[in-house]
């Protein structure tokens, strides 16, 4: 529960009014369960618009109780001055001379609410509760915007860093070639050319993964949810990796009943399968195996991907789903990847109200278990 002090200023030329109102709300506490906030009220009173504006030079209230009729500068003028000053103060007009005209005028000048004199302490607290919600919600919205901005900045910073690396590498090779550091014979530069292609491929993959990620995040592309048969989809994805698997003598196997169906967007499921099968081969050992199993459980489809690969330590498992997170150790040095695969997967799993579990033993292998909710039986 957040505790927040709300400053309430009362501007009224009737001292009795000020005193009565202050007594009703000073040090009063109100809990707003749904906003997870407890508000404590601190009251200050002023007898004129002038003294209010003076005081405003040093501090400002969250909520203002403003009398419409004041000697000197009247309530409406004060409202005008507040409007120009661009402060976010929630104003409740308290007035004994309420007319529709005055109400419309005050509203146009930014007044939030009205309280007709005479009012009971209960009526006062009621109006204050409404105003408080406005104050608290506005503040929460501002904080949320700040957070969002920070997160986006972080993400963009890391992305810029991730792209700088391959660009720097390619630049370096080009400069070495310009300097003819390995001599006049183009054949000597074969490794450099190969490395440049690799880094370019990596950048392309990164950008592609990024687009996938933001597309899912923003929910901008329409989801094409329909009943799909799982087995043909898995077989199709596994087929795409057959060549790579054969070249390293990694055996691929699939256990999946012909009849398993689910309501899903096939491109999302394909993305998910691609990531796990790709990882299951990339991080595997030569002559190893990757087993894919699909089962229907009561309200879900369960996918199990088990490989005999290099595995991960507990510590490495912790970092798995973070964006751009790549496990860097002796064994993974030459394995390419954008670091976004599992973050994308995580977002897809969330779309299906699902969960992911990982079990891994270094040097022995890793098993990922993914459950996606599907209520059609």
């Amino acid at each position: 529960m957040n505790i927040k002090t709300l400053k309430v200023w009362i501007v009224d030329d009737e001292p009795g009014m000020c005193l009565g109102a202050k007594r009703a709300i000073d040090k009063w506490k109100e809990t707003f369960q749904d906003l997870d906030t407890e508000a404590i009220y601190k009251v200050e009173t002023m007898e004129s618009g002038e003294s209010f504006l003076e005081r405003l030079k040093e501090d400002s209230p969250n909520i203002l109780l403003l009398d419409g009729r004041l000697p000197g500068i009247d309530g409406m003028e004060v409202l005008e001055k507040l409007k120009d000053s661009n402060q976010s103060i929630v104003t409740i007009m308290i007035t004994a001379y309420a007319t529709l005209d005055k109400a419309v005028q005050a509203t146009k000048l930014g007044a939030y609410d009205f309280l007709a004199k005479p009012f009971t302490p209960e009526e006062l607290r009621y109006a204050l509760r409404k105003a408080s919600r406005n104050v608290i919600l506005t503040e929460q919205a501002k904080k949320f915007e700040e957070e969002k901005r920070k997160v986006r900045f972080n993400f963009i910073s890391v992305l810029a860093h991730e792209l700088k690396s391959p660009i720097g590498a390619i630049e370096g090779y080009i400069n070495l070639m310009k300097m003819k550091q390995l001599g006049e014979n183009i054949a000597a530069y074969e490794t450099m050319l190969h490395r440049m292609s690799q880094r370019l491929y990596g950048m392309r993959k990164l950008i592609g993964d990024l687009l996938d990620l933001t597309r899912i995040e923003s929910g901008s592309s329409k989801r094409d949810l329909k009943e799909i048969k799982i087995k043909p989809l898995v077989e199709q994805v596994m087929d795409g990796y057959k060549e790579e698997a054969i070249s390293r003598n990694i055996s691929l196997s699939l256990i999946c009943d012909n009849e398993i169906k689910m309501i899903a967007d096939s491109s999302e499921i394909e993305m998910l399968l691609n990531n796990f099968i790709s990882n299951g081969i990339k991080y595997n050992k030569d002559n190893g195996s990757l087993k894919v199993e699909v089962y229907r459980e009561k309200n879900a489809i369960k996918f199990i991907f088990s490989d005999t690969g290099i595995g991960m330590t507990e510590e490495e498992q912790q970092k798995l789903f973070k964006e751009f997170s790549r496990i860097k150790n002796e064994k993974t040095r030459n394995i390419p990847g954008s670091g976004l695969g599992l973050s994308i997967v995580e977002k897809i799993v969330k779309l299906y109200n699902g969960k992911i579990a990982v079990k891994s033993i270094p040097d022995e292998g890793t098993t990922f278990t993914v459950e996606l909710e599907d209520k059609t039986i």
Partner: protein
Amino acid sequence: MQPKHTILLVDDDDDFLLQHKIYLSNAGYNVITASSRKEAEDIVKQHKIDCALIDLMMEEADSGFILAYHLKKDNPSLPVIIITSVTGETGIEFKKNGKEHDKWIKADVILSKPVRFEQIEKEIKRLIG
């Protein structure tokens, strides 16, 4: 003939290591490369190093700093050059100025990527000849 100086290059980017090994070898230095703090510390135990070039390695944010610190501690006269790509994106400035920095950044020079080969060569020459 003067014996070659040995440079230790530490960076988790293999291309960075390969490129600088080619350039600095051609410039007359003996070059040993390492991709991690641990690898670097093992190498230093077995070889005499005349100058170390360390990347800050953002994956484990403090690897570069810790390595520089250890190297200087074991051999205060070893010139250490830190190279970082941190500046610019994050807005964190690493400038070797001010007493505060001197206290905990154990490096003789701090350079920001991208650095030209010629500039690295210049700094190394300045530090060890």
